Protein backbone atom coordinates (compact mmCIF):
# COMPACT_ATOMS: atom_id res chain seq x y z
CA UNK A 1 0.00 0.00 0.00
CA UNK A 2 1.48 3.32 -0.91
CA UNK A 3 1.87 6.09 1.64
CA UNK A 4 0.21 9.51 1.46
CA UNK A 5 0.17 12.45 3.84
CA UNK A 6 -3.05 13.73 5.37
CA UNK A 7 -4.37 16.99 3.95
CA UNK A 8 -3.21 19.14 6.86
CA UNK A 9 0.27 17.64 6.70
CA UNK A 10 0.38 18.24 2.94
CA UNK A 11 -0.24 21.88 3.76
CA UNK A 12 2.60 21.83 6.29
CA UNK A 13 4.87 20.40 3.61
CA UNK A 14 3.97 23.21 1.22
CA UNK A 15 4.92 25.72 3.92
CA UNK A 16 8.14 23.81 4.66
CA UNK A 17 9.29 24.06 1.07
CA UNK A 18 9.12 27.87 1.18
CA UNK A 19 11.84 27.96 3.84
CA UNK A 20 14.63 26.48 1.74
CA UNK A 21 16.38 27.10 -1.58
CA UNK A 22 16.41 23.41 -2.49
CA UNK A 23 13.81 20.67 -2.19
CA UNK A 24 16.41 18.34 -0.69
CA UNK A 25 16.69 20.57 2.39
CA UNK A 26 13.13 19.60 3.33
CA UNK A 27 14.16 15.93 3.55
CA UNK A 28 14.57 15.68 7.34
CA UNK A 29 11.53 17.82 8.25
CA UNK A 30 9.38 15.83 5.79
CA UNK A 31 10.60 12.52 7.22
CA UNK A 32 9.58 13.80 10.67
CA UNK A 33 6.16 14.69 9.31
CA UNK A 34 5.72 11.23 7.80
CA UNK A 35 6.94 9.43 10.91
CA UNK A 36 4.56 11.48 13.06
CA UNK A 37 1.70 10.08 10.96
CA UNK A 38 2.98 6.56 10.31
CA UNK A 39 4.90 5.79 13.52
CA UNK A 40 7.96 4.65 11.60
CA UNK A 41 9.73 5.17 8.30
CA UNK A 42 8.51 2.26 6.20
CA UNK A 43 9.82 1.57 2.68
CA UNK A 44 6.64 3.24 1.40
CA UNK A 45 7.52 6.40 3.27
CA UNK A 46 11.00 6.41 1.75
CA UNK A 47 9.49 6.15 -1.75
CA UNK A 48 6.98 8.86 -0.96
CA UNK A 49 9.62 11.30 0.29
CA UNK A 50 11.88 10.54 -2.68
CA UNK A 51 9.04 11.24 -5.14
CA UNK A 52 7.91 14.40 -3.37
CA UNK A 53 11.40 15.92 -3.25
CA UNK A 54 12.75 14.56 -6.56
CA UNK A 55 15.46 12.60 -4.79
CA UNK A 56 16.81 9.11 -5.40
CA UNK A 57 15.26 6.70 -2.86
CA UNK A 58 18.82 5.68 -1.92
CA UNK A 59 19.52 9.23 -0.76
CA UNK A 60 16.46 9.22 1.48
CA UNK A 61 17.28 5.76 2.80
CA UNK A 62 20.81 6.98 3.57
CA UNK A 63 19.40 9.85 5.60
CA UNK A 64 17.00 7.56 7.47
CA UNK A 65 19.76 5.17 8.52
CA UNK A 66 22.05 7.99 9.65
CA UNK A 67 19.80 9.58 12.28
CA UNK A 68 18.84 7.69 15.40
CA UNK A 69 15.37 9.26 15.75
CA UNK A 70 14.01 7.71 12.56
CA UNK A 71 12.44 4.36 13.41
CA UNK A 72 13.39 1.74 10.86
CA UNK A 73 10.83 -0.70 12.20
CA UNK A 74 7.46 -0.29 13.93
CA UNK A 75 7.63 0.91 17.54
CA UNK A 76 5.23 1.18 20.46
CA UNK A 77 2.61 3.89 20.88
CA UNK A 78 4.76 5.72 23.44
CA UNK A 79 8.51 6.26 23.30
CA UNK A 80 10.50 6.22 26.52
CA UNK A 81 14.12 7.32 26.28
CA UNK A 82 16.33 7.09 29.37
CA UNK A 83 19.51 9.18 29.19
CA UNK A 84 22.47 6.93 30.03
CA UNK A 85 25.43 9.28 29.44
CA UNK A 86 27.91 10.16 32.19
CA UNK A 87 26.34 13.24 33.85
CA UNK A 88 23.04 11.37 34.24
CA UNK A 89 24.85 8.13 35.15
CA UNK A 90 26.63 9.98 37.99
CA UNK A 91 23.23 10.85 39.45
CA UNK A 92 21.51 7.50 39.14
CA UNK A 93 20.55 6.89 35.49
CA UNK A 94 21.45 3.24 36.01
CA UNK A 95 18.78 2.89 38.69
CA UNK A 96 16.23 4.73 36.54
CA UNK A 97 16.81 2.38 33.60
CA UNK A 98 16.70 -0.64 35.88
CA UNK A 99 13.38 0.52 37.31
CA UNK A 100 11.91 0.99 33.81
CA UNK A 101 13.05 -2.46 32.74
CA UNK A 102 11.68 -4.07 35.88
CA UNK A 103 8.37 -2.26 35.72
CA UNK A 104 7.79 -2.86 32.00
CA UNK A 105 9.25 -6.36 31.94
CA UNK A 106 11.40 -5.58 28.90
CA UNK A 107 14.99 -4.61 28.16
CA UNK A 108 16.12 -1.35 26.60
CA UNK A 109 15.51 -1.56 22.85
CA UNK A 110 12.33 -3.61 23.21
CA UNK A 111 8.57 -2.92 23.06
CA UNK A 112 6.00 -4.17 25.56
CA UNK A 113 3.89 -7.08 24.29
CA UNK A 114 0.76 -4.91 24.18
CA UNK A 115 2.56 -2.57 21.78
CA UNK A 116 2.17 0.39 24.10
CA UNK A 117 5.70 1.34 25.16
CA UNK A 118 9.11 1.17 23.51
CA UNK A 119 11.98 1.61 25.95
CA UNK A 120 15.35 2.85 24.74
CA UNK A 121 18.48 4.49 26.11
CA UNK A 122 19.48 7.89 24.78
CA UNK A 123 22.79 9.71 24.59
CA UNK A 124 23.00 13.06 26.40
CA UNK A 125 19.73 15.01 26.13
CA UNK A 126 21.10 18.34 27.43
CA UNK A 127 19.50 17.97 30.83
CA UNK A 128 22.63 17.33 32.91
CA UNK A 129 21.79 19.94 35.55
CA UNK A 130 18.49 18.21 36.29
CA UNK A 131 19.75 14.61 36.08
CA UNK A 132 18.73 11.83 36.00
CA UNK A 133 16.12 12.31 33.32
CA UNK A 134 14.06 10.57 30.70
CA UNK A 135 12.06 11.68 27.71
CA UNK A 136 8.55 10.35 27.17
CA UNK A 137 7.29 11.15 23.67
CA UNK A 138 7.80 14.96 23.50
CA UNK A 139 8.16 15.66 27.21
CA UNK A 140 11.17 15.76 29.51
CA UNK A 141 10.94 14.34 33.04
CA UNK A 142 13.82 15.52 35.18
CA UNK A 143 15.31 15.02 38.67
CA UNK A 144 13.90 11.49 38.61
CA UNK A 145 13.55 9.10 41.52
CA UNK A 146 12.36 5.50 41.23
CA UNK A 147 9.02 6.57 42.73
CA UNK A 148 8.60 9.24 40.03
CA UNK A 149 9.49 6.68 37.34
CA UNK A 150 6.76 4.36 38.63
CA UNK A 151 4.22 7.16 38.59
CA UNK A 152 5.09 8.20 35.02
CA UNK A 153 4.98 4.66 33.67
CA UNK A 154 1.71 3.88 35.46
CA UNK A 155 0.10 6.92 33.86
CA UNK A 156 1.43 5.91 30.46
CA UNK A 157 0.10 2.37 30.65
CA UNK A 158 -3.45 3.41 31.45
Amino acid at each position, binding site marked *: MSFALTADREQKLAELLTRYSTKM*AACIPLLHLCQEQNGWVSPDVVDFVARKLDLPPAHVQGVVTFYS*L*FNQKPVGKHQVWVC*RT*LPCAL*RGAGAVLHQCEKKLGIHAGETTSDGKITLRTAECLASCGTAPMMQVDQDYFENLTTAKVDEILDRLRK
Partner: protein
Amino acid sequence: MIKRTEFLSKVYGLANGHSLDVYEREVAGYATARNVLTSMTPQQVVDEAKKANLRGRGGAGFPMGVKWSFMRPHPTKPSYLVINADEGEPGTHKDRTIMEWNPHSVIEGCIIGCYAIGAHVAYIYVRDELHLSKARLWGAIAEAKAKGYLGATPFGKAYPVEVYVHTGAGAYICGEETALINSLEGKRGEPRLKPPFPAQAGVYGCPTTVNNLETIAAVPSAFRMGCDEFSKLSALHAINDGGFRLYGINGHVKKPGVVELGVGPTLNELIYDIGGGVTGDRKVMCVIPGGSSTPVLRPEETVDAPDEKSPLHAWHGKSVFDVPLGVDTMRGVGTMLGTCCITVLAEGTCPVLAMHNLMQFYRHESCGQCTPCREGGAWLLRTVDKLLDNNATMQELDQLHDIANNIMGNTICAFGEGTAMPALGFLKKFRPEFEAYVRGERNRKDATLTPS
Protein backbone atom coordinates in the same frame (compact mmCIF):
# COMPACT_ATOMS: atom_id res chain seq x y z
CA MET B 1 36.32 35.66 40.75
CA ILE B 2 32.58 35.29 40.92
CA LYS B 3 30.63 38.14 39.40
CA ARG B 4 26.98 37.39 38.93
CA THR B 5 25.28 39.06 35.97
CA GLU B 6 21.70 39.03 34.70
CA PHE B 7 21.80 39.96 31.06
CA LEU B 8 20.30 36.75 29.72
CA SER B 9 18.99 35.28 32.93
CA LYS B 10 17.01 38.29 34.18
CA VAL B 11 13.84 36.97 32.55
CA TYR B 12 14.49 33.35 33.58
CA GLY B 13 11.71 32.21 35.87
CA LEU B 14 9.55 35.32 35.46
CA ALA B 15 5.90 34.75 34.60
CA ASN B 16 5.77 34.63 30.79
CA GLY B 17 9.50 35.40 30.81
CA HIS B 18 9.78 34.03 27.29
CA SER B 19 7.25 36.47 25.83
CA LEU B 20 7.96 39.60 23.83
CA ASP B 21 6.19 41.83 26.36
CA VAL B 22 8.45 40.77 29.21
CA TYR B 23 11.55 40.90 27.01
CA GLU B 24 10.80 44.49 26.00
CA ARG B 25 9.81 45.56 29.51
CA GLU B 26 12.67 43.98 31.47
CA VAL B 27 15.68 44.38 29.22
CA ALA B 28 14.55 46.93 26.62
CA GLY B 29 14.36 44.10 24.12
CA TYR B 30 14.77 44.85 20.40
CA ALA B 31 15.78 48.48 21.11
CA THR B 32 19.36 47.43 20.39
CA ALA B 33 18.55 45.74 17.08
CA ARG B 34 16.51 48.77 16.08
CA ASN B 35 19.39 51.06 16.94
CA VAL B 36 21.96 48.92 15.09
CA LEU B 37 19.88 48.58 11.93
CA THR B 38 18.90 52.23 11.75
CA SER B 39 22.16 53.93 12.77
CA MET B 40 25.13 51.70 11.86
CA THR B 41 26.60 50.27 8.68
CA PRO B 42 27.31 46.52 8.56
CA GLN B 43 31.06 47.25 8.60
CA GLN B 44 30.64 49.34 11.77
CA VAL B 45 28.74 46.47 13.36
CA VAL B 46 31.54 44.00 12.62
CA ASP B 47 34.22 46.42 13.88
CA GLU B 48 32.27 47.02 17.08
CA ALA B 49 31.66 43.28 17.53
CA LYS B 50 35.40 42.61 17.50
CA LYS B 51 35.80 44.80 20.59
CA ALA B 52 33.53 42.48 22.56
CA ASN B 53 36.17 39.73 22.67
CA LEU B 54 33.21 37.39 22.54
CA ARG B 55 34.75 33.95 22.22
CA GLY B 56 32.50 31.39 20.54
CA ARG B 57 30.46 29.63 23.21
CA GLY B 58 30.22 26.32 21.35
CA GLY B 59 33.55 24.92 22.45
CA ALA B 60 36.29 26.07 20.09
CA GLY B 61 36.34 29.62 21.48
CA PHE B 62 36.94 31.42 18.18
CA PRO B 63 36.35 35.21 18.46
CA MET B 64 32.90 35.97 17.05
CA GLY B 65 33.74 39.40 15.58
CA VAL B 66 36.70 37.97 13.67
CA LYS B 67 34.50 35.18 12.30
CA TRP B 68 31.96 37.74 11.11
CA SER B 69 34.73 39.65 9.35
CA PHE B 70 35.53 36.61 7.16
CA MET B 71 32.25 37.07 5.30
CA ARG B 72 32.62 38.66 1.87
CA PRO B 73 29.58 39.44 -0.25
CA HIS B 74 29.37 37.14 -3.27
CA PRO B 75 28.43 38.69 -6.63
CA THR B 76 25.59 36.22 -7.27
CA LYS B 77 25.04 34.10 -4.18
CA PRO B 78 23.17 35.10 -1.00
CA SER B 79 24.75 34.76 2.45
CA TYR B 80 23.36 32.82 5.39
CA LEU B 81 23.54 32.92 9.16
CA VAL B 82 23.23 29.55 10.84
CA ILE B 83 22.80 29.17 14.59
CA ASN B 84 24.06 25.98 16.15
CA ALA B 85 21.66 24.79 18.86
CA ASP B 86 22.37 21.09 18.44
CA GLU B 87 23.33 20.97 22.10
CA GLY B 88 24.39 17.41 22.87
CA GLU B 89 27.91 17.40 24.27
CA PRO B 90 27.63 15.26 27.42
CA GLY B 91 27.58 17.60 30.39
CA THR B 92 26.23 20.59 28.46
CA HIS B 93 22.87 22.07 29.39
CA LYS B 94 23.11 25.82 28.89
CA ASP B 95 21.63 26.55 25.43
CA ARG B 96 18.40 24.85 26.37
CA THR B 97 17.81 27.39 29.14
CA ILE B 98 18.14 30.28 26.68
CA MET B 99 15.75 28.73 24.15
CA GLU B 100 13.17 27.86 26.77
CA TRP B 101 13.35 30.98 28.91
CA ASN B 102 14.77 33.76 26.76
CA PRO B 103 14.16 32.93 23.09
CA HIS B 104 13.84 36.59 22.07
CA SER B 105 17.52 37.23 22.84
CA VAL B 106 18.30 34.67 20.13
CA ILE B 107 15.97 36.26 17.59
CA GLU B 108 17.29 39.76 18.30
CA GLY B 109 20.85 38.44 18.02
CA CYS B 110 19.96 36.87 14.66
CA ILE B 111 18.70 40.22 13.33
CA ILE B 112 21.95 41.97 14.29
CA GLY B 113 24.06 39.04 13.05
CA CYS B 114 22.28 38.85 9.69
CA TYR B 115 22.76 42.58 9.18
CA ALA B 116 26.46 42.41 10.06
CA ILE B 117 27.32 39.60 7.66
CA GLY B 118 24.96 40.54 4.83
CA ALA B 119 22.51 37.67 5.27
CA HIS B 120 18.74 37.85 4.91
CA VAL B 121 17.95 34.39 6.22
CA ALA B 122 18.97 32.76 9.50
CA TYR B 123 18.42 29.09 10.28
CA ILE B 124 18.45 27.98 13.91
CA TYR B 125 19.43 24.31 13.93
CA VAL B 126 17.87 22.76 17.05
CA ARG B 127 18.18 19.10 17.95
CA ASP B 128 14.84 17.44 17.49
CA GLU B 129 14.51 16.17 21.06
CA LEU B 130 14.13 19.71 22.42
CA HIS B 131 10.44 20.12 21.65
CA LEU B 132 9.80 22.93 24.16
CA SER B 133 12.82 24.86 22.87
CA LYS B 134 11.57 24.64 19.29
CA ALA B 135 8.09 25.76 20.29
CA ARG B 136 9.48 28.74 22.24
CA LEU B 137 11.67 29.82 19.32
CA TRP B 138 8.82 29.55 16.81
CA GLY B 139 6.64 31.49 19.25
CA ALA B 140 9.25 34.22 19.53
CA ILE B 141 9.60 34.41 15.74
CA ALA B 142 5.83 34.79 15.34
CA GLU B 143 5.69 37.55 17.98
CA ALA B 144 8.62 39.44 16.46
CA LYS B 145 7.07 39.13 13.00
CA ALA B 146 3.73 40.45 14.19
CA LYS B 147 5.48 43.54 15.57
CA GLY B 148 7.37 44.10 12.33
CA TYR B 149 10.79 43.29 13.80
CA LEU B 150 11.26 40.48 11.28
CA GLY B 151 10.11 40.28 7.68
CA ALA B 152 10.53 42.62 4.72
CA THR B 153 11.27 45.82 6.65
CA PRO B 154 12.47 45.21 10.20
CA PHE B 155 12.10 48.44 12.22
CA GLY B 156 11.12 50.17 8.98
CA LYS B 157 14.51 49.49 7.40
CA ALA B 158 14.52 47.96 3.91
CA TYR B 159 16.68 45.06 5.00
CA PRO B 160 14.58 41.85 4.94
CA VAL B 161 15.35 39.27 7.64
CA GLU B 162 13.66 35.88 8.04
CA VAL B 163 14.46 33.39 10.79
CA TYR B 164 13.56 29.69 10.59
CA VAL B 165 13.95 26.84 13.04
CA HIS B 166 15.33 23.67 11.48
CA THR B 167 15.58 20.39 13.34
CA GLY B 168 17.93 17.46 13.25
CA ALA B 169 16.98 13.89 13.96
CA GLY B 170 19.32 12.65 16.65
CA ALA B 171 23.01 12.82 15.76
CA TYR B 172 25.63 14.43 18.02
CA ILE B 173 27.97 14.98 15.07
CA CYS B 174 25.57 17.55 13.60
CA GLY B 175 26.95 19.97 16.20
CA GLU B 176 30.11 20.06 14.03
CA GLU B 177 29.50 23.04 11.75
CA THR B 178 30.01 21.38 8.36
CA ALA B 179 28.03 18.27 9.41
CA LEU B 180 25.31 20.65 10.53
CA ILE B 181 25.33 22.31 7.11
CA ASN B 182 25.02 18.93 5.37
CA SER B 183 22.15 18.03 7.67
CA LEU B 184 20.48 21.37 6.97
CA GLU B 185 20.74 20.63 3.25
CA GLY B 186 18.88 17.35 3.78
CA LYS B 187 21.86 15.01 3.72
CA ARG B 188 23.55 12.60 6.10
CA GLY B 189 25.28 14.66 8.78
CA GLU B 190 28.83 13.87 7.78
CA PRO B 191 31.46 16.59 8.30
CA ARG B 192 33.07 18.14 5.22
CA LEU B 193 36.74 18.67 4.51
CA LYS B 194 37.93 22.21 5.22
CA PRO B 195 38.80 24.28 3.22
CA PRO B 196 36.56 25.55 1.85
CA PHE B 197 35.37 27.02 5.13
CA PRO B 198 31.69 27.88 5.57
CA ALA B 199 32.46 31.58 5.04
CA GLN B 200 33.41 30.67 1.46
CA ALA B 201 31.06 27.76 0.79
CA GLY B 202 28.48 26.84 3.40
CA VAL B 203 24.74 26.27 3.10
CA TYR B 204 23.81 25.55 -0.58
CA GLY B 205 27.43 26.43 -1.41
CA CYS B 206 26.88 30.03 -0.31
CA PRO B 207 28.88 32.15 2.19
CA THR B 208 27.74 31.13 5.67
CA THR B 209 28.55 32.00 9.26
CA VAL B 210 27.82 29.41 11.91
CA ASN B 211 27.51 30.80 15.46
CA ASN B 212 26.64 28.98 18.66
CA LEU B 213 23.26 29.83 20.14
CA GLU B 214 24.70 31.32 23.36
CA THR B 215 27.10 33.44 21.30
CA ILE B 216 24.31 35.02 19.25
CA ALA B 217 22.09 35.43 22.33
CA ALA B 218 24.82 37.53 23.98
CA VAL B 219 25.06 39.90 21.01
CA PRO B 220 22.13 42.19 21.94
CA SER B 221 23.52 42.65 25.47
CA ALA B 222 26.99 43.41 24.12
CA PHE B 223 25.70 46.09 21.73
CA ARG B 224 23.33 47.54 24.32
CA MET B 225 26.13 48.36 26.76
CA GLY B 226 28.82 48.87 24.13
CA CYS B 227 31.11 46.03 23.15
CA ASP B 228 34.11 47.41 25.02
CA GLU B 229 32.11 47.58 28.27
CA PHE B 230 30.83 44.07 27.59
CA SER B 231 34.36 42.73 27.32
CA LYS B 232 35.28 44.32 30.66
CA LEU B 233 32.65 42.24 32.48
CA SER B 234 35.22 39.47 32.29
CA ALA B 235 38.08 38.86 34.69
CA LEU B 236 40.05 37.79 31.61
CA HIS B 237 39.36 40.94 29.55
CA ALA B 238 43.13 41.54 29.36
CA ILE B 239 43.69 38.29 27.49
CA ASN B 240 40.86 38.87 25.01
CA ASP B 241 38.26 36.65 26.60
CA GLY B 242 35.35 38.97 27.30
CA GLY B 243 31.81 39.24 28.55
CA PHE B 244 29.57 36.97 30.57
CA ARG B 245 28.79 33.29 30.05
CA LEU B 246 26.40 30.67 31.24
CA TYR B 247 28.23 28.26 33.51
CA GLY B 248 26.71 24.84 34.04
CA ILE B 249 27.43 22.64 37.06
CA ASN B 250 26.45 18.98 37.08
CA GLY B 251 27.49 15.60 38.43
CA HIS B 252 28.27 15.08 42.11
CA VAL B 253 27.35 18.50 43.52
CA LYS B 254 24.62 19.48 45.93
CA LYS B 255 23.09 22.18 43.76
CA PRO B 256 23.51 21.46 40.06
CA GLY B 257 22.25 24.02 37.56
CA VAL B 258 23.09 26.90 35.24
CA VAL B 259 24.31 30.31 36.37
CA GLU B 260 25.26 33.48 34.50
CA LEU B 261 28.61 34.97 35.51
CA GLY B 262 31.25 37.33 34.18
CA VAL B 263 33.92 35.20 32.48
CA GLY B 264 36.55 33.93 34.90
CA PRO B 265 35.29 32.02 37.95
CA THR B 266 37.53 29.18 39.15
CA LEU B 267 36.56 25.53 39.41
CA ASN B 268 36.64 25.75 43.20
CA GLU B 269 34.26 28.70 43.13
CA LEU B 270 31.85 26.89 40.84
CA ILE B 271 31.90 23.69 42.88
CA TYR B 272 31.69 25.20 46.37
CA ASP B 273 30.17 28.70 46.05
CA ILE B 274 27.69 27.97 43.26
CA GLY B 275 27.28 24.20 43.40
CA GLY B 276 27.05 24.06 47.20
CA GLY B 277 29.90 21.56 47.50
CA VAL B 278 30.25 17.89 46.68
CA THR B 279 27.43 15.44 47.38
CA GLY B 280 27.95 13.71 50.72
CA ASP B 281 30.74 16.20 51.51
CA ARG B 282 33.21 13.99 49.72
CA LYS B 283 36.39 15.23 48.13
CA VAL B 284 36.57 15.94 44.42
CA MET B 285 38.20 13.14 42.44
CA CYS B 286 38.27 15.05 39.16
CA VAL B 287 36.34 17.53 37.04
CA ILE B 288 35.50 17.45 33.35
CA PRO B 289 35.74 21.19 32.70
CA GLY B 290 33.63 21.75 29.59
CA GLY B 291 31.80 18.80 28.15
CA SER B 292 32.99 15.23 27.81
CA SER B 293 35.51 15.97 25.04
CA THR B 294 37.71 18.00 27.37
CA PRO B 295 40.39 16.12 29.36
CA VAL B 296 39.77 15.80 33.10
CA LEU B 297 41.49 17.90 35.74
CA ARG B 298 42.41 16.66 39.22
CA PRO B 299 42.60 18.97 42.24
CA GLU B 300 46.20 17.89 42.97
CA GLU B 301 47.39 19.28 39.63
CA THR B 302 49.30 22.56 39.79
CA VAL B 303 50.06 25.21 37.21
CA ASP B 304 53.54 25.07 35.78
CA ALA B 305 54.26 28.48 34.24
CA PRO B 306 57.64 29.76 35.49
CA ASP B 307 58.01 32.02 32.44
CA GLU B 308 56.97 35.54 33.42
CA LYS B 309 55.55 36.17 29.96
CA SER B 310 53.13 33.26 30.24
CA PRO B 311 49.51 34.37 30.72
CA LEU B 312 49.30 31.75 33.47
CA HIS B 313 52.36 32.96 35.39
CA ALA B 314 50.20 34.66 38.03
CA TRP B 315 48.95 31.20 39.06
CA HIS B 316 52.30 29.41 38.89
CA GLY B 317 52.43 26.71 41.56
CA LYS B 318 48.76 27.03 42.47
CA SER B 319 46.09 24.36 42.01
CA VAL B 320 44.46 24.25 38.58
CA PHE B 321 41.18 24.51 40.48
CA ASP B 322 42.11 28.11 41.37
CA VAL B 323 42.69 29.28 37.78
CA PRO B 324 39.94 31.41 36.20
CA LEU B 325 38.03 29.43 33.59
CA GLY B 326 38.75 30.95 30.19
CA VAL B 327 39.45 29.71 26.68
CA ASP B 328 43.20 30.32 26.85
CA THR B 329 43.73 29.62 30.55
CA MET B 330 42.24 26.14 30.22
CA ARG B 331 44.30 25.49 27.12
CA GLY B 332 47.31 26.51 29.20
CA VAL B 333 46.65 23.83 31.81
CA GLY B 334 46.34 21.07 29.23
CA THR B 335 42.61 20.87 28.78
CA MET B 336 39.88 22.96 27.15
CA LEU B 337 37.16 25.30 28.32
CA GLY B 338 34.79 23.66 25.84
CA THR B 339 31.17 24.46 26.51
CA CYS B 340 31.83 25.80 29.98
CA CYS B 341 29.64 23.28 31.80
CA ILE B 342 31.58 21.35 34.44
CA THR B 343 30.95 17.75 35.45
CA VAL B 344 32.13 16.91 38.97
CA LEU B 345 33.16 13.37 39.90
CA ALA B 346 33.45 12.70 43.64
CA GLU B 347 35.98 10.46 45.33
CA GLY B 348 34.78 6.87 45.26
CA THR B 349 33.69 7.05 41.61
CA CYS B 350 35.44 4.52 39.39
CA PRO B 351 37.39 6.43 36.71
CA VAL B 352 37.59 3.33 34.49
CA LEU B 353 33.82 2.98 34.52
CA ALA B 354 33.47 6.71 33.79
CA MET B 355 35.75 6.40 30.77
CA HIS B 356 33.82 3.31 29.67
CA ASN B 357 30.58 5.29 29.79
CA LEU B 358 32.06 8.06 27.65
CA MET B 359 33.58 5.63 25.16
CA GLN B 360 30.11 4.13 24.66
CA PHE B 361 28.96 7.60 23.74
CA TYR B 362 31.77 8.19 21.21
CA ARG B 363 31.37 4.71 19.76
CA HIS B 364 27.67 5.41 19.21
CA GLU B 365 28.06 8.91 17.79
CA SER B 366 30.98 8.52 15.37
CA CYS B 367 29.55 9.28 11.93
CA GLY B 368 31.65 6.48 10.44
CA GLN B 369 33.31 8.44 7.64
CA CYS B 370 36.93 8.15 8.82
CA THR B 371 38.41 4.76 9.69
CA PRO B 372 40.56 5.89 12.66
CA CYS B 373 37.54 7.32 14.46
CA ARG B 374 34.99 4.65 13.48
CA GLU B 375 37.24 1.68 14.26
CA GLY B 376 39.37 3.34 16.94
CA GLY B 377 36.39 4.40 19.04
CA ALA B 378 34.98 0.87 19.00
CA TRP B 379 38.41 -0.59 19.77
CA LEU B 380 38.86 1.70 22.77
CA LEU B 381 35.46 0.67 24.09
CA ARG B 382 36.10 -3.05 23.59
CA THR B 383 39.44 -2.87 25.36
CA VAL B 384 38.08 -0.92 28.36
CA ASP B 385 35.26 -3.44 28.50
CA LYS B 386 37.80 -6.29 28.68
CA LEU B 387 39.69 -4.35 31.33
CA LEU B 388 36.58 -4.04 33.50
CA ASP B 389 36.14 -7.82 33.19
CA ASN B 390 39.74 -8.30 34.40
CA ASN B 391 40.54 -9.86 31.02
CA ALA B 392 43.03 -7.31 29.68
CA THR B 393 46.81 -7.49 29.84
CA MET B 394 49.24 -4.68 30.66
CA GLN B 395 50.12 -4.65 26.97
CA GLU B 396 46.51 -3.98 26.05
CA LEU B 397 46.36 -1.19 28.60
CA ASP B 398 49.37 0.41 26.92
CA GLN B 399 47.75 -0.19 23.56
CA LEU B 400 44.87 2.11 24.55
CA HIS B 401 47.34 5.02 24.34
CA ASP B 402 48.41 3.94 20.84
CA ILE B 403 44.83 3.63 19.61
CA ALA B 404 43.93 7.08 20.95
CA ASN B 405 47.08 8.67 19.54
CA ASN B 406 46.35 7.18 16.14
CA ILE B 407 42.87 8.68 16.03
CA MET B 408 44.17 12.14 16.87
CA GLY B 409 44.88 14.31 13.85
CA ASN B 410 43.87 11.62 11.37
CA THR B 411 40.21 12.48 10.87
CA ILE B 412 38.19 15.00 8.85
CA CYS B 413 36.69 16.71 11.89
CA ALA B 414 37.56 17.25 15.55
CA PHE B 415 35.31 14.43 16.75
CA GLY B 416 38.39 12.17 16.58
CA GLU B 417 40.23 14.44 19.03
CA GLY B 418 37.03 14.61 21.06
CA THR B 419 37.25 10.85 21.53
CA ALA B 420 40.99 10.53 22.00
CA MET B 421 41.68 13.46 24.33
CA PRO B 422 39.33 12.49 27.18
CA ALA B 423 40.46 8.86 26.81
CA LEU B 424 44.11 9.89 27.18
CA GLY B 425 43.18 12.20 30.06
CA PHE B 426 41.68 9.35 32.06
CA LEU B 427 44.48 6.94 31.10
CA LYS B 428 47.29 9.30 32.13
CA LYS B 429 45.74 10.69 35.28
CA PHE B 430 44.34 7.43 36.69
CA ARG B 431 47.03 4.93 35.68
CA PRO B 432 47.06 3.08 39.04
CA GLU B 433 43.29 2.49 38.87
CA PHE B 434 43.56 1.08 35.34
CA GLU B 435 46.47 -1.16 36.38
CA ALA B 436 44.46 -2.42 39.33
CA TYR B 437 42.00 -3.96 36.87
CA VAL B 438 44.80 -5.73 35.03
CA ARG B 439 46.11 -7.14 38.31
CA GLY B 440 42.64 -8.17 39.42
CA GLU B 441 42.66 -5.86 42.46
CA ARG B 442 39.47 -4.15 41.33
CA ASN B 443 36.48 -5.61 39.55
CA ARG B 444 33.40 -4.44 37.67
CA LYS B 445 31.01 -5.62 40.38
CA ASP B 446 32.37 -3.14 42.93
CA ALA B 447 32.88 -0.30 40.48
CA THR B 448 30.36 2.53 40.79
CA LEU B 449 29.49 5.89 39.31
CA THR B 450 27.26 6.78 42.26
CA PRO B 451 29.32 6.52 45.46
CA SER B 452 26.86 6.73 48.35
